[in-house]
């Protein structure tokens, strides 16, 4: 019997995406990024929701055509039900609910961050638990121990800004466009990270395994430190000359903190494999630093840059997993929830 054919839909932030998946094979995949938000220096929820409604049908059609299938061929639809921006989530969930009802097939709600956890397995069939997972995006920074699919222990998280959010805010401070992650990474290559030695928050004062914040991170203070330094160099008329050094110094601080926390997670869980997911996972310097903290025989798992973005394929991948587990819930349970709890996630003791 062949693997089920699953459509995955993602609309939780500023990417409208749909993918057609059979097994681990992506048959069709469209990701439409909304460029309009660059004008505003960040995602404008109302504009994002309007854009999703305008294109969702065409995005789905594109994925189906690329995969040589029609809606009638589907066995199930997976859709990101949360967390995310409620306006965008409602567009995806409402379209998917209507379609699943019309087709008489299951609708499977998917947690956005769990989908990032599954993304590497689309390209690497060995990318399954157990592993330590660092999920870093514009909205989240989570450090988990995944014992098995659906059995996750939360080790740490951010106390304030998410890592991607910190990149966006610092980019704005140094006069770079949104989104900040790719542009900071690019110009940081030309800068000296030691020229502006920014603080490494939550490292020294939380260095023992029993400390409350042993695995947690915080980027708000770092952002303030960058803002202060930017003000100083601006007063000297040196922002242009110092921009790359500021970017490099900031990035090095973020990367060092995240890598140190991952090392602690590896030691505490005695798990040598590390998965990195979410938009910030596309950052090459972060991946390099995580590779350096791996123990002998360890392995770093990550998706390609395209599948590190928000995308429909990872959503379809989670839905496929649920189907294999025997999903049989009615579609009535699928409701968009901006604060959807992570399924199977418990805070580590």
């Amino acid at each position: 019997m062949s693997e089920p054919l699953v459509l995955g839909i993602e609309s939780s932030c500023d990417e409208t995406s749909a993918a057609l998946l059979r097994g681990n094979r992506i048959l069709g995949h469209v990701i439409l990024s909304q460029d309009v938000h660059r004008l505003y220096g960040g995602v404008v929820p109302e504009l994002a929701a309007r854009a999703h409604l305008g294109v969702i049908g065409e995005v789905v059609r594109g994925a189906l055509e690329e995969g040589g299938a029609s809606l009638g061929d589907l066995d199930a639809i997976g859709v990101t039900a949360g967390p995310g921006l409620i306006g965008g989530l409602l567009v995806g969930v409402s379209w998917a609910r209507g379609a699943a009802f019309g087709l008489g097939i299951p609708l499977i709600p998917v947690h956005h961050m769990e989908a990032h956890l599954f993304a590497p397995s689309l390209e690497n069939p060995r990318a399954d638990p157990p592993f330590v997972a660092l999920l870093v995006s514009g909205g989240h920074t989570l450090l988990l121990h995944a014992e098995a699919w659906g059995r996750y222990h939360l080790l740490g998280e951010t106390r304030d800004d998410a890592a991607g959010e910190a990149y966006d805010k610092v980019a704005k401070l140094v006069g770079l466009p949104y989104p900040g992650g790719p542009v900071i990474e690019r110009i940081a290559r030309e800068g000296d990270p030691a020229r502006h030695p920014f603080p490494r928050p939550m490292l020294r004062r939380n260095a023992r395994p029993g400390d409350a914040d042993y695995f947690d991170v915080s980027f708000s203070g770092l952002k303030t430190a960058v803002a202060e330094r930017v003000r100083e160099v601006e007063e000297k008329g040196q922002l242009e000359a110092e921009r790359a050094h500021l970017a490099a110094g900031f990035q090095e601080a973020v990367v060092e903190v995240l890598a140190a926390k991952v090392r602690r997670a590896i030691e505490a869980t005695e798990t040598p494999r590390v998965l990195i997911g979410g938009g910030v996972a596309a950052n090459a310097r972060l991946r390099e630093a995580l590779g350096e903290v791996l123990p002998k025989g360890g392995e770093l798992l990550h998706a390609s840059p395209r599948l590190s973005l928000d995308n429909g394929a990872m959503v379809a991948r989670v839905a496929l997993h649920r189907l294999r587990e025997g999903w049989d819930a009615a579609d009535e349970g699928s409701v968009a929830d901006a604060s959807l709890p992570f399924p199977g996630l418990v805070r580590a003791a």
Partner: protein
Amino acid sequence: MTMPGGEGGWTLALDTSTPRGSVALGRGSEVRGVRHLGSAREHAARLVPAVRDLLDDARVGPDDLTALVAGSGPGSFTGVRVAGATAMGLAAGLGIPARGRSSLLALACAWMAGGRGDSRGDEVLCTLFDARGDRVYAAWFRVGDSGPLEIGSPAAARLGEVLATPVSGPVLFLGDGALRHREKIEMAGAFRVVEPAATLAEGHLLAETLGLPAFETDGFKGWQAQYLRGSSAVPSGAVGGGSE
């Protein structure tokens, strides 16, 4: 006269533009059933279950539907999108067209579908949706044998601007905007606030039978939401307010 969904076909209508969301099922001039969707917060969660319940009660299968119609706004931005996205998904899944039609026009039709109360029959209609504060979404109609005929274009406006519109003869105001501002409206001229006995979804069913203007999608082509107002966001570096 166009029968909704064609000869013998069932039409499903839905509207979540206002806090009074509704779903209705009809065929020709027959309205088989109506469901209310509760508060605006519940619309997204209750819409598809209400459709299922309505069809089950009427013993009509999803495959017996031949047409869909949904309110395209104006109204709650979120509500407009919930109706549009659901109608698109249903259309794509069922392989039938979905039509989008002004929710303000559907309200005028709902007044006709509900029996017109004690109307003299020659009044001008002004349908008003509440847009918070003293703002409303408004559209004007004359009612003829072929249904409501829109006068001008629908607009987002302050109530005072709407009430200052020069109109000859009596005017009937309806909608949640009219109910909210009833006192001001009825003091402002030969104006009367009335409540339609039918829902917006029933108004859409009547609009279908009358063949009133609408756009059509197969569920993949984009939905033409009528927001009538822009986002309040201001581009970086821009000075001044948004377009709201």
